[in-house]
């Protein structure tokens, strides 16, 4: 109770004796613990030796004889280095092209007047709702027609234009004072030079916010790469993990599944724990991806 009072000591005096906010807080703490249990189990099960048997698999108390066997097994059974490479290639490829498309389009909306600006703006806005995953069927046939079936480029292509990114950059560019651009204009800088040397360097926070959203969402994409990719050596992590899980589930190798899952999510979790504040603020701006 003392601890709870200390946590609530910055609340207004009038509300400090209220019981409801404290109950709500305790409930939230309880739920936060529940929320962490799957992660806790993943960690414990990864280190649990197979000799503990299936009946102890659910035990959340860590084994006294921790082992790295599960990690080694997962590493050998699943082709995780290859999957990781593919996912990294997909995320990087998408992000690099997106940087170009959203910078140019964001600049056009922020600084240029042109005929049809409003209808084109709505064309972008609509894309926020028509998420690519809904259009997997027509997009798969297009990717096949373009000869990109079973290629990483085929996985990346539908995401090259980003309405969300365009709006984010438009907002960032609008905040930059025009005086800076005018000075460059007098010096004879071209449009692209002004974008490259004035607007882009001053909008790095927005680029990093967009990068976080883009990479986490495409790191997690599943159904689309599942449809486009056929060769095992081109699978991204998510598809690889689902195949791996389906195989290991048959042999009840839950420790190996836990280890495989850990390897898939570890890069994102570690990055999140380091850049926590930046992640949270990026996700707040994301709204609709």
């Amino acid at each position, binding site marked *: 109770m003392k601890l709870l009072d200390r946590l609530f000591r910055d609340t207004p005096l009038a509300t400090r004796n209220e019981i409801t906010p404290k109950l709500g807080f305790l409930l939230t703490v309880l739920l936060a613990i529940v929320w962490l249990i*799957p992660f806790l189990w993943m960690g414990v099960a990864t280190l649990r030796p197979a000799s503990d048997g299936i009946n102890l698999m659910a035990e959340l108390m860590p084994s006294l004889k921790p082992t790295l066997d599960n990690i080694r097994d997962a590493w050998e059974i699943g082709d995780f280095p290859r999957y990781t490479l593919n996912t990294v290639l997909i995320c990087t490829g998408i992000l690099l092209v997106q940087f170009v498309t*959203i910078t140019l389009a964001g600049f056009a909306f922020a600084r240029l*007047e042109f005929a049809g600006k409003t209808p084109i703006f709505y064309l972008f806005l609509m894309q926020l709702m028509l998420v690519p995953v809904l259009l997997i069927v027509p997009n798969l*046939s297009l990717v096949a027609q373009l000869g990109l079936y079973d290629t990483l480029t085929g996985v990346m*292509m539908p995401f*090259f234009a980003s309405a969300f990114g365009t709006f984010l950059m438009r907002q960032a560019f609008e905040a930059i004072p025009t005086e800076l651009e005018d000075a460059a204009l007098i010096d004879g800088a071209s449009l692209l030079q002004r974008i490259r040397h004035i607007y882009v360097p001053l909008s790095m926070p927005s680029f990093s916010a967009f990068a976080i959203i883009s990479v986490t969402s495409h790191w997690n994409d599943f159904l689309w790469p599942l*449809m486009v990719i056929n060769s095992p050596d081109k699978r991204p992590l998510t598809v690889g993990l689902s195949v791996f899980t389906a195989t290991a589930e048959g042999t009840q190798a839950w420790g190996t599944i*836990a280890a495989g899952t850990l390897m898939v999510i570890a890069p994102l979790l570690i990055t999140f724990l380091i850049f926590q504040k930046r992640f949270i603020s990026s996700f707040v701006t994301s709204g609709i991806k």
Partner: protein
Amino acid sequence: MSLAEPAALPVAASAPARLHIVTRFSHRFKTSLPAYLLLLPSLVFLALFTYGAMGRVLVDALYQRATPKAPVRFVGLDNIAAVLADSAFTGAVVNNLVYAVGTAIPSIGLALLFALALSRTNAVNSALRAALFLPVLIPMVAASALFLFIFLPNVGLLDYYIGSLLPVLPNWLGDSDIALYAIMVITIWKNAGYYMLFFLAGLQAVPEDVMEAAHLDGAGPYQRLRHIIMPELKPTFLFVTVIAILNAVTQVDHVFVMTKGGPSNATNLVLFYIYQQAVEHYDIGKASAATLLTLAALMGLTALSFRTMANREDGP
């Protein structure tokens, strides 16, 4: 020169009027050209993968092949009729509605609770926020792999810890009466932390002085929530509801990993049905018809949410 011009004008009055419109148009186009060039890369991909894709769905929905190798023939609305008559599709629609309501309400309710409890910034609250946010980051496939064990009959996490409290051990994913709810638990676990962020942001808009006045007037926590905080959060509620519904339609990875739509289609959702038709049955006509119906439903939602988004975006 300036004196001569007015005299010269009336001579060719009729033709230049039209010419004038053309030059004005071409002038407007010329000044707009840099903007169009900048927009071109984005517009190409939007045209190919969003608007072109919608057009292709429309066309593909009207054609059918007798066998996967046979040439396509025009069948009109037959595909749509076939999809609507398919009990697997109507079942998936019903499942998806139950799933949307059953995931949106609890996850939004929990998100509000979390945000209210953790709105003040201190080290403890930040840690709790991070804990609740972790599931948002991980792939749905990874979450499914973990919950596959949690729901495992007899030896799984759930049965190991709370199984003794239940009269009979349910087969969480294998019982067609329970499986859809088990799937919903994952979605709630994964999304509540995401929606929490929007409520946390929304709570910052609640005016400090109004809250203070409420304290002075002796308003209790329920009264403050009901009369001050909730009205202020109304745009956030609308916005989060739209995202939650969108997520309910587009997130089906866990269905693929955990149940494949089974047992007996109890967990089949619309997007998974589309996937099955396209990839497992090679029935592009039916898959397109189902996509078309889903898009139509979402367009309705778009119209609704445009108003919501208009509050966030100021327009061009």
